[in-house]
């Protein structure tokens, strides 16, 4: 089953246009919610039934997240969509914004209605100029058609949306840093608790969901939570967008059912480039630990399967590497990323990411020392679980994964001052 939820508009000629979206039943669900008097409680129940889990990487159950908001509490509440999509290897939300922006708009309106929010923000990665414009156009069209604004279809429900462009910091994909950024402050994660459901944007109750999560909502409501759940497997309901890249013939975004075997996804992506053997796969964005290729070929693409192999499904960014890749070089590049993107707020991440990068870089450049691998193990342990946000973990996990599965390459590098690959 492919392209049934977020990318269901792909066959259309101009899928970003409101008329075309409506031609396949778009915004009908929203109307139905108002005309049939579907209650917020029913919506949240349906989302819970769907077993939709946060598609941004953490996999937190969406329905549960929504239920944390006390929707009847007085005062402003917010729906925030996280389209910051900064995880290396991930480029799925971009395609939702480009090819199905109205479904996201509809999803956000429904989310707003479910939690009693009248205002939503979509925080879009600053480099996404064309996708952001598409989304803005979609907002404008929706407003003109009466789906946004005051008293939507006479329901008494007001809701409007704003686009907020990010400034290029990876850490702003972290939900509380994202809120700070919308507020005009430096993008730094907040210490939690309090969680955004209680103290979010401008201190108001807020839900923050990934683009894909929110774009899935209209289909969940239309076809039912059970339908969505049945698309996937136990504990991983629905379909999922995978952005697959690396040494493959046909990189791109594929919406497939949860639980689809990895080899099928690889086939969709055209298989390995030049027919080379698969060496390693990063299954869920650069933060997820690497999995050796042969092990990956036996796994299915769902939360439990990937977790069972010691990694994470994450954002669904699958990076495939063949045997020409030096894992030390790969790790050096990834560690450099986290070193550059640490916000600098808390000590272990600020200092530790730079340390990791420098040690890995030294090994890559033939200046490694025998004790360096133990040092890397130790430093990652001292970062993981001790920082304000998950960026510290994200920086530590790839190092741990690489050292677990490809330690021999690192040892070779240290001993021979050069690459094992190709020698």
């Amino acid at each position, binding site marked *: 089953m492919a392209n049934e939820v977020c990318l269901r508009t792909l066959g259309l000629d101009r899928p970003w246009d409101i008329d075309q979206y409506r031609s396949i039943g778009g915004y009908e669900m929203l109307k139905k919610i108002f005309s049939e008097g579907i209650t917020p409680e029913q919506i949240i129940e349906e989302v819970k039934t769907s077993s939709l889990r946060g598609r941004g990487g953490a996999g937190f159950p969406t329905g549960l997240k929504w239920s944390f908001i006390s929707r009847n509490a007085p005062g402003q509440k917010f729906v925030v969509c996280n389209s910051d999509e900064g995880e290396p290897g991930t480029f799925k939300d971009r395609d939702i914004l480009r090819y199905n922006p109205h479904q996201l708009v509809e999803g956000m309106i429904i989310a707003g209605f479910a939690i009693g929010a009248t205002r939503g923000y979509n925080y879009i990665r600053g480099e996404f100029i064309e996708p952001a414009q598409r989304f803005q156009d979609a907002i404008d069209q929706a407003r003109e058609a009466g789906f946004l604004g005051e008293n939507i279809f006479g329901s008494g429900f007001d809701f409007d949306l704003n686009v907020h462009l990010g400034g290029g910091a990876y850490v702003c994909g972290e939900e509380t840093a994202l809120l700070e950024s919308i507020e005009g402050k430096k993008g730094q994660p907040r*210490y939690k608790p309090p969680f955004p459901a209680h103290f979010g944007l401008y201190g108001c109750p807020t839900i923050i969901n990934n683009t894909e999560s929110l774009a899935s909502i209209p289909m969940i409501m239309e076809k039912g939570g059970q339908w969505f759940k049945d698309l996937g497997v136990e504990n991983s309901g629905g379909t999922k967008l995978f952005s697959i890249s690396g040494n493959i013939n046909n990189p791109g975004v594929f919406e497939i059912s949860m639980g689809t075997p990895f080899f099928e996804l690889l086939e969709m992506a055209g298989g390995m480039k030049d027919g080379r053997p698969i060496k390693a796969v990063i299954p869920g964005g650069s933060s997820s630990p690497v999995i050796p290729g042969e092990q990956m070929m036996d796994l299915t693409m769902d939360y439990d399967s990937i977790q069972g192999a010691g990694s994470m499904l994450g954002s669904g960014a699958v990076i495939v590497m063949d045997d020409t890749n030096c894992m030390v070089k790969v790790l050096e590049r990834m560690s450099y990323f986290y*070193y550059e*993107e640490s*916000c600098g707020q*808390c*000590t272990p991440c600020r*200092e530790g990411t730079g340390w990791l990068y420098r040690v890995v870089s030294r090994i890559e450049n033939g200046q490694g020392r025998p004790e360096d691998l133990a040092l890397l193990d130790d430093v990652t342990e*001292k970062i993981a679980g*001790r920082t304000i946000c998950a960026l510290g973990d994200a920086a530590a996990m790839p190092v741990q994964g690489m050292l677990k599965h490809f330690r021999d390459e690192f040892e070779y590098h240290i001993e021979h001052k050069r690459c094992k690959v190709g020698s």
Partner: protein
Amino acid sequence: MSEDQTVTIEVDGRELQAQAGAMLIDVTDAAGINIPRFCYHKKLSVSANCRMCLVEVEKVWKPLPACATPVADGMKVFTRSPMALAAQKGTMEFLLINHPLDCPICDQGGECELQDVAVGYGSDVSRFVEGKRVVKDKDIGPLVATDLTRCIHCTRCVRFGAEIAGIRELGATGRGEHMTIGTYIEKSVDSELSGNIIDVCPVGSLTSKPFRFHARAWELVQRESIAPHDSVGSSVNVHVRRNEVMRVVPCDNEAVNECWISDRDRFSYTGLASEERLTRPMIKQKNGWMETSWHDALNQVAQGLKDVAGEQLGALVSPSATLEEMHLAQKLVTGLGSSNIDYRLRQGDFRGQESAYPWLGQSIEALETLNAALLIGSNVRKEQPILGHRLRKAAVAGANISFINPMELDMNYASSQLVNTPAGMVDDLAAVAKAQGASGDIIDSAEVGDAHKAVAEQLKTADNASVLLGNIAVAHPDYSLLCSLAAKVAETSGAKLGFLPEAANSTGARLAIRTDGLNATAMLEHPRKGYLLMGVEPAYDFYNPALATTAFDKAEFVVALTVFRSPTIEAAADVMLPISSFGETSGTYVNAEGTWQSFAGAVSPKGETRPAWKVLRVLGNMLDIDGFDQDSSVDVFNEVKETAGDRQPDNTVGDATDSERKVAAGGLTRIGDVPLYAIDPLVRRAAPLQQTKDAISASIRLNAREATRGGFAEGDRAVVVQDGNRAVLPIEIDPNVPDSCVRVPAGLAGTEMLGGQFGEVTLEKA
């Protein structure tokens, strides 16, 4: 769980009672259990960024920061378990990898939190072999030195600025390792409380520029004292090495200054090193000033005073003198048959019945709890910075703070400011009184506007309101009117009437000095034959310096008990007796809230200087006046205590609302406020303070409309003429000055020959 519920937690096996929701670190601190920390500061918001206070909490898989973990009933905490120690040591290692470890050349060495904690949690060998981070230092002004390579990014200084100083002058720019503390745009840190960032900085990243490289912490002896520059009476620690004051730092005193002090109190000690310090008695002779012995000098003074004894003698005493000094000065003057002694040197109006013992009207701490306040003629933020901070706390908590002033102030919180000419200030206050339903001559004729109604309403509806009079009000030519009106406003609104006394002992002076003779201005308007001056400079410490200078000029005999010599003192005096300064003498100040605060000398008197009380005591003996046989300042103190110890503060003022208005209503009125670093002889000589932005130099400030009217442009030199005296000063365009006014601050070089602080002036082209 409600906030006031008590819960029981267990820390390292010890059972502790705590308020539900309190942060763990506060609970352990109160119980004396030490958890290492860097970013946590009891007066600042929690940021949880240093990760040094990570502890193990039962049933939580990862260590939690004690500073950001609220306690809950039954919580079991382990501060030194393997998990906690591993986390703390891990953080310590991270903090040290990029820290320069240049302790031997770091000013913080020996009093460094990082150093201290490293002893317990650091390793003796570093595993970090890479190059360390280096950060370019920034010049943030004359008071605070930066060494940003040492920064551990705790952001205490940033939070201090945002939360306490009330201006975000420092921030953390850049990400990750590149994060650095700075001002973003090259500029100085100008808060009047900026020096406190030196104390909150746990490492040697922010240090005192004037103190830098002058002494090591372990060479210093710490002696408690009381700051001498405003009526807060902040508790300070004077750090001394080899009988020299090396620096001044705050001493925790929750009721007065919490853990902060103003820059003025912190850096004024630098004035002690002034080349103008007078260290030996001097006598004026035909061919100039001659150093002499105490014996000869005192003999000459005794003779001089004897010659002018009786009502022809006037004594003018600095309001920063100690209670003991004031008491003996009063005794001496009385003994010489005079009743003329005063300390209200900057008061602009002596009509009406003044309050018997003016004070803040409440405790300093209580200022924080106000819901509304009206400040009349006060730039409290610069005049009494710590009181300004307390009021800011109230404002941040939602209090409505309003001002009636002759110029718009640069505030660090939301406030409403009624800005008017000095004459208009009286109208504004009368209008507020009228809006509240008060009546009286001047009130009935006032025109009430929306702003007046708003202020009146705020004062009336607030549970806890106060009407406060500041330094500008004291110098106002219609001070008695302002007092009466303020009292009416307070009475009709149920607000507390309070004074923001100007100097360290303005409040205490009332207990030691009887002002039943000629007042300060009358003594000058009706020149005396002889004067005794104590701790004052004629050209800078009087409401009308021209009047003072002339009076002293004409006098037959003037003795100046002074810490410094300067042209203005030398011109006025016949004998200069060198007295001990701040830090060198013992004594007592009574602060704004009426607290008697005694202190001992931190160092012995410099050179041949003597504490003023001793000088006065000996003079008393030489003049054969009874009651001068005290052996110590404590003996003097006991005398004051006996006569005035029971006096209760009393802000009752008489009704003077029918008084004639003195302040000029037409023409140009001078606004002669005293800038915060011009208030007394010591501060005026504190070189680092004089380099700050707040240390303005004398100029003629007027708004663009007035400038155009007079044909002046920014930077022009113009002549300001007051009472026939002329001063040539540069023009500065200042939108904060109202129409029909020129701001020519007092107490500054260049204003020596001008008249009253709020007199009529004219401008001429230079």
